[in-house]
């Protein structure tokens, strides 16, 4: 099947407006007879469910957590971008569009990104109307901060928990519709398959995670908003339950999976401390505004630090290597995430890491504390302030800005980051790849939509900070509710979809067979045993730096691991009860397939772009020597994979990316 992105004609500025003027609408009386299923209740799913219900459709929403409010969007710390230009610093829809396409290393679809920038301002209006308590200045107006990779202040925030506040906004809108009976909420339910009838998505099979009951739910359209697949690495900043099952199931039923190798490894996470580690914790990117990243300049010092024989504070200034400032003088510690992560890995691989395993670098606030302290001394007219006084004054400022993050760090690591530099290391954080969708956010299956992090998204090969929240809410509040109407306008005569059909029978049987297999298999190893092994393969061979040999090995190793999993997995308990191990087994089984497609996609894309770094594709000389080398001539496309049984047999479909409004350039942060 040829990919049709369905991007409307006309100048980029008018596409969305003209499109909305011309689409088919469903009249209010008919909306009452149309059902929509939304899977996932994070920012994308929650906002979509609320808005669709408000429009008059009957919505059934599903979450694996015990409340929609707990979806992992809640963990986003830093903020949300919007082209409001409240600061009058030259921001505009075009600039946000440009920054997003450039930041994504020119691997996203122009028309979608422009639309995202266009509706971004609406999001802030909407959230304020809902009572989201964004930070304000003393005049009572909204405050902004700046994030990596851009030159304006367009990030709105609510302390260090913007994600929670935005999600609570969407959740409150959902609650209003639940109370009205327009959303039927299914908490502690997990979608285990999609049901297709005559080529159209017509429902899902879900498991009630409390009773174990397998349920059938029908609808005129199905929306997948189940988040990203970062947990394919086992260790990531995702929640423990974050999974790719909904996305992977629809892939197996005909939805193409795009750019799976585009994954974001976030530079500032707390390093792992041992084999028992279950997840990694992110420290907000905002820390890089004031923190300086370094490792010892001399290898002997590095070894001594690793063995805890030397304290970082005892290393003289001239013996420190501030490697981001050294390599990227223009952006320094604020280079985009992919660049910062790779630079840290390069130093650690060379032996300069600073914790016991050699997988950490310092993030140091000493100079920020001193700088703020001197500034405060001046403001308060303190002459000849002592070093201690300066430290105290400066510490107060740093505390006001990052106090909650410092406290979080101290709780986990048991070290005071005001006194000794933090240790950080990159960790998997976000997946830019995902289900391929057209301009309408519809997948390659009719009536099946995919929004938020679960789709292949507007972020190309690298996402900028504070843009995930923007995309999730844009898709759910402002884009999907329009585009889905055009499709549903053809469904007004369909009537209720029955669930006692052979298509539902077959899908349910498949789901039940798989569950029975897990329960009866009684193998030698727990689910986590396999998940950890998969994570190690992914991190070592499909991590921050990839090469042909490693990727081929990864494909073979994952396939072998998958075969072993199906022989040896051990799932205790029964199917008809709450059974967390059974839930995990299904998710890991899907990760074991997705991981192989991931490696295949990374192998096929023999260029370095954004978060995808191929060792074979680097600049060989000049100012950019050693930096990632993108190849627009051969790879300016979206790689959309069609399922053919085994992940290795997936068929590649290319959507060529055309850049009419932005000139393709090599990114430089030097």
């Amino acid at each position, binding site marked *: 099947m040829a990919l049709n992105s369905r991007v409307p004609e006309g100048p980029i500025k008018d596409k969305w407006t003209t499109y909305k003027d011309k689409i088919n609408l469903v009249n209010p009386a008919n909306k009452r007879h149309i059902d929509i299923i939304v899977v996932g209740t994070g920012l994308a799913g929650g906002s979509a469910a609320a808005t669709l219900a*408000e429009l008059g459709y009957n919505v059934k929403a599903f979450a694996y957590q015990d409340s929609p409010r707990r979806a992992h969007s809640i963990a986003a710390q830093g903020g949300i971008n919007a082209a409001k230009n409240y600061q009058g610093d030259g921001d505009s829809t075009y600039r946000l569009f440009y920054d997003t396409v450039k930041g994504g290393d020119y691997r996203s679809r122009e028309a979608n990104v422009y639309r995202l920038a266009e509706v971004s301002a609406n999001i802030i209006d909407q959230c*304020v109307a809902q009572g989201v308590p964004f930070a304000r200045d003393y005049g009572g107006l909204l405050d902004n901060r700046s994030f990596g990779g851009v030159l304006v202040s367009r990030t709105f925030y609510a302390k260090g928990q913007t994600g929670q506040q935005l999600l609570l906004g969407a959740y409150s809108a959902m609650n209003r519709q639940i109370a009205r009976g327009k959303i039927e909420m299914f908490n502690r339910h997990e979608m285990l398959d999609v049901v297709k009838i005559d080529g159209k998505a017509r429902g899902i099979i879900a498991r009630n995670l409390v009773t174990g009951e397998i349920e059938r739910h029908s609808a005129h359209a199905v929306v997948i908003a189940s988040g990203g697949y970062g947990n394919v690495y086992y260790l990531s900043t995702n929640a423990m339950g974050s999974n790719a099952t909904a996305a992977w199931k629809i892939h197996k039923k005909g939805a193409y999976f795009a750019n799976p190798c585009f994954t974001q490894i976030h530079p500032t996470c707390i390093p792992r401390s041992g084999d028992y580690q279950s997840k990694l914790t992110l420290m907000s990117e905002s820390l890089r505004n004031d923190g300086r990243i370094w490792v010892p300049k001399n290898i002997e010092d590095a070894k001594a630090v690793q063995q805890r024989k030397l304290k970082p504070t005892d290393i003289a200034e001239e013996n420190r290597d501030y490697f981001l400032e050294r390599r990227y003088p223009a952006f320094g510690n604020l280079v985009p995430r992919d660049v910062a992560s790779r630079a840290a890995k390069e130093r650690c691989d060379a032996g300069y890491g600073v914790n016991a395993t050699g997988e950490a670098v310092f993030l140091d606030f000493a100079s920020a504390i001193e700088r703020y302290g001197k500034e405060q001394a001046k403001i308060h007219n303190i002459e000849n302030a002592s070093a201690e006084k300066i430290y105290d004054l400066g510490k107060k400022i740093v505390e006001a800005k990052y106090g909650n993050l410092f406290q979080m760090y101290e709780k986990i690591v048991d070290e005071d980051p005001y006194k000794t530099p933090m240790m950080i290391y990159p960790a998997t954080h976000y997946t830019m790849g995902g289900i391929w969708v057209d301009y309408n956010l519809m997948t390659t299956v009719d009536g099946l939509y995919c929004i938020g992090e679960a789709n292949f998204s507007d972020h190309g090969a690298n996402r900028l900070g504070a843009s995930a929240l923007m995309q999730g809410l844009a898709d759910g509040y402002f884009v999907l509710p329009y585009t889905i109407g055009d499709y549903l306008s053809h469904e007004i005569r369909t009537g209720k979809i029955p669930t006692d059909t052979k298509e539902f029978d077959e899908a349910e049987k498949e789901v039940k067979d798989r569950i029975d297999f897990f329960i009866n298999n009684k193998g030698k190893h727990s689910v986590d045993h396999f998940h950890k092994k998969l994570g190690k393969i992914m991190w070592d061979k499909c991590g921050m730096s990839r090469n042909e040999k490693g990727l081929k090995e990864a494909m073979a190793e994952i396939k072998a691991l998958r075969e072993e999993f199906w022989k040896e997995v051990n799932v205790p308990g029964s199917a008809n009860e709450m059974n967390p191990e059974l839930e995990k087994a299904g998710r890991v089984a899907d990760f074991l397939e997705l991981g192989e497609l991931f490696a295949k996609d990374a192998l096929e894309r023999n260029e370095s772009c954004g978060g995808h770094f191929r060792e074979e594709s680097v600049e060989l000389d000049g100012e950019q020597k050693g930096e990632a080398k993108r190849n627009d001539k051969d790879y300016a496309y979206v790689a959309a994979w069609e399922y053919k049984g085994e992940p290795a047999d997936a068929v590649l479909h290319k959507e060529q990316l055309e850049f009419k409004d932005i000139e393709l350039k090599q990114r430089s942060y030097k």
Partner: protein
Amino acid sequence: MNLTLKIWRQKDSNTKGQMVDYKVTDISEHMSFLEMMDVLNEQLINKGEEPVAFDHDCREGICGMCSMYINGEAHGPDRGVTTCQLHMRMFKDGDTITIEPFRAKAFPVIKDLVVDRSAFERIQQAGGYISVNTSGNTQDANSIPISKHAADEAMDAATCIGCGACVATCKNSSAMLFVGAKVSQYALLPQGQIEAADRVRNMVAQMDLEGFGNCTNTGACEIECPKGISLDNIARMNRELMKASLS
């Protein structure tokens, strides 16, 4: 370190539960409490026994899913943290640790340490929102100036993660801190004024209907709250309710 764990095991909501003893060995002080539970579960699975079911998700203290009552305290002995942020360095070698679910009449046990907190959902559905359409046709965000003080106070109330530690801690199983925080967030903002009276009346009525107890101002909830939600929010809710009854 080596530890003895006394854990509440209960097959489902209809079966009677009991405390069961387990031993874990070689626990690192750097582990989180839930990682220690992972070690126990891996051990149980390999022995062919059923692992302990417990709620958890983000493991960074924000989703509000984890809910253990450890040594008689919601979220355990540390302050300002959820169970998932609690670390084993808070315990000593040889300790016996008692682990129970969040107990309250309105939070029935589903299995082992997992409880049903859907009562919180219904309270929010009763009025925990501002009735504004998500159409994108709202007024410009800066056309409603809000004093920094009010915005900050509303934010402090909004940091509640809905974990239910306040209920589990309260000797009356009162949900007043939770409901107070929700009511306060909207009461402090101009957007929330229009429906303020109905909101507080409906939410409090639903809270009572769910079987939560009353507040006797012991203040235990504030101390155990992982997000430090202040008792002021309960006072504000009572004030709002009084105002609503006079209007």
